[in-house]
């Protein structure tokens, strides 16, 4: 009997397993995940869970019975510690070995920490359900919150903290929130959105360290000034979780390099890197939809379908009343052209133009209209 082993029991991992079953795979499926929880969804963590509008159970992808019914051997609280490609086994932290004919690496990413002061009480990361529950508890009690890092995670958390009544400062080295991902112009619009909601946005500010005795009391910036804080979220980036693969000779370099993996080995989700012919770049995306798409692709390849993977990336973020959605890839040199609506009214559609072509489309509170714009990218 053919055996599939999936390492990582989250969006990409559970989707791979369930797609395999749905599409008729009759062999054994084992999913290995180091978290104690049943697979759950992360996007609501920085939104509904922080705000308290959803009970945490709502993030679950379904009860354990579904996995049992589908004949998926879900091993929670179990960490893969190594991989032997020649013997085709995954080694667990317990020493146990699990053999496979097809392996799917779906171990995601891990948030980075600050070097000084990260151990202080009141300092948080946000990746897991437990992180979100702890951060919410801290935010409910906090008066002054500093969010270090203004990517989508930091920006969404700043919005949630503000909505919970905290005094919030959002700090980033970049000039404006999400400017790295979406360009300076959209960055300024997001900065304005936060300012209008009462968040203090400090762009171009590096954080040197977190200050405090046992609990955090402040955040020191590169210019020597200190911002008072009794809760801090550090959201300064991530790194792919490939440590367990180091001794295996599986080709990795800021993620598992999909094109270079040996036959029978696949990667999906935040940990996977591939070459996009459509956009002419190497991509590794930390976007929820990519986890699904790549997992479906991995499952179908295991089922013998000879399909390529060159999607039009899709990403969304919700902050206050703004739903910002992007299809495509935003090159650093792209020019923003508003094609419909009005940024002033916080409802518009824009194209990112680079090298004479549209490489991404962005919608700000225009989901339905944005969908039709996607066709511009499928034609590439």
């Amino acid at each position, binding site marked *: 009997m053919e055996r599939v082993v999936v390492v990582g029991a989250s969006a990409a991992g559970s989707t791979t397993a369930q797609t395999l079953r749905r599409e008729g795979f009759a062999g054994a499926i084992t999913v290995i995940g180091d978290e104690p929880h049943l697979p759950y969804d992360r996007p609501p963590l920085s939104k509904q869970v922080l705000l308290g509008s959803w009970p945490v159970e709502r993030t679950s992808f379904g009860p354990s019975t579904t996995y049992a019914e589908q004949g998926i051997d879900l091993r929670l609280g179990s960490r893969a510690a190594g991989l032997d490609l020649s013997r085709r086994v995954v080694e667990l932290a317990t020493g146990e070995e699990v053999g496979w004919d097809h392996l799917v690496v779906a171990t995601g990413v891990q948030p980075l920490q600050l070097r000084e002061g990260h151990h202080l009480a009141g300092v948080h990361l946000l990746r897991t359900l437990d992180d979100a529950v702890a951060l919410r508890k801290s935010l409910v009690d906090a008066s002054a919150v500093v969010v270090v890092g203004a990517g989508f995670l930091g920006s969404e958390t700043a919005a949630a903290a503000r909505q919970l009544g905290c005094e919030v400062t959002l700090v980033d080295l970049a000039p404006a929130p999400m400017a790295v991902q979406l360009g300076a112009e959209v960055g300024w619009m997001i900065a304005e959105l936060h300012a209008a909601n009462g968040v203090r946005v400090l762009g171009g500010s590096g954080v040197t360290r977190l200050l405090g005795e046992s609990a955090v009391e402040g955040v020191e910036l590169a210019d020597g000034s200190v911002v008072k804080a009794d809760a801090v979220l550090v959201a300064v980036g991530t790194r792919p979780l490939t440590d367990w693969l180091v001794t295996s000779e599986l080709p990795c370099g800021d993620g598992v390099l999909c094109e270079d993996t040996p036959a029978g080995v696949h990667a999906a989700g935040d940990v996977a890197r591939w070459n996009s012919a459509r956009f002419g770049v190497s991509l590794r995306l930390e976007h929820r939809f990519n986890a*699904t798409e790549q997992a479906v692709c991995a499952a179908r390849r295991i089922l013998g379908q000879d399909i390529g993977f060159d999607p039009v990336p*899709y990403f969304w973020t919700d902050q206050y009343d703004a739903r910002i959605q992007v299809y495509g890839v935003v090159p650093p040199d792209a020019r923003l052209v508003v094609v419909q609506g009005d940024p002033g009214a916080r409802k518009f559609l824009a194209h990112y133009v680079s090298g004479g072509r549209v490489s991404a489309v962005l919608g700000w509170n225009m*989901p*339905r209209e944005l969908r039709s714009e996607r066709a511009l990218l499928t034609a590439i």
Partner: protein
Amino acid sequence: MNVEIDQEGCVAAGQCVLAAPDVFDQRDEDGVAVLLREPLADEYDATREAALLCPARAIALSE
């Protein structure tokens, strides 16, 4: 086939409409998915694909 959309969980990604345009649409004001009508037999595959791809897993099918 019975289709249910969890409109509160829907994140307005529109992937369902891309997969099965005759079955799903998005509301004008907020992009939340709506069911146009029950899928016809030859649309079951597309409807299953929509449920599979929905990034919020907001589409439940019972067959």
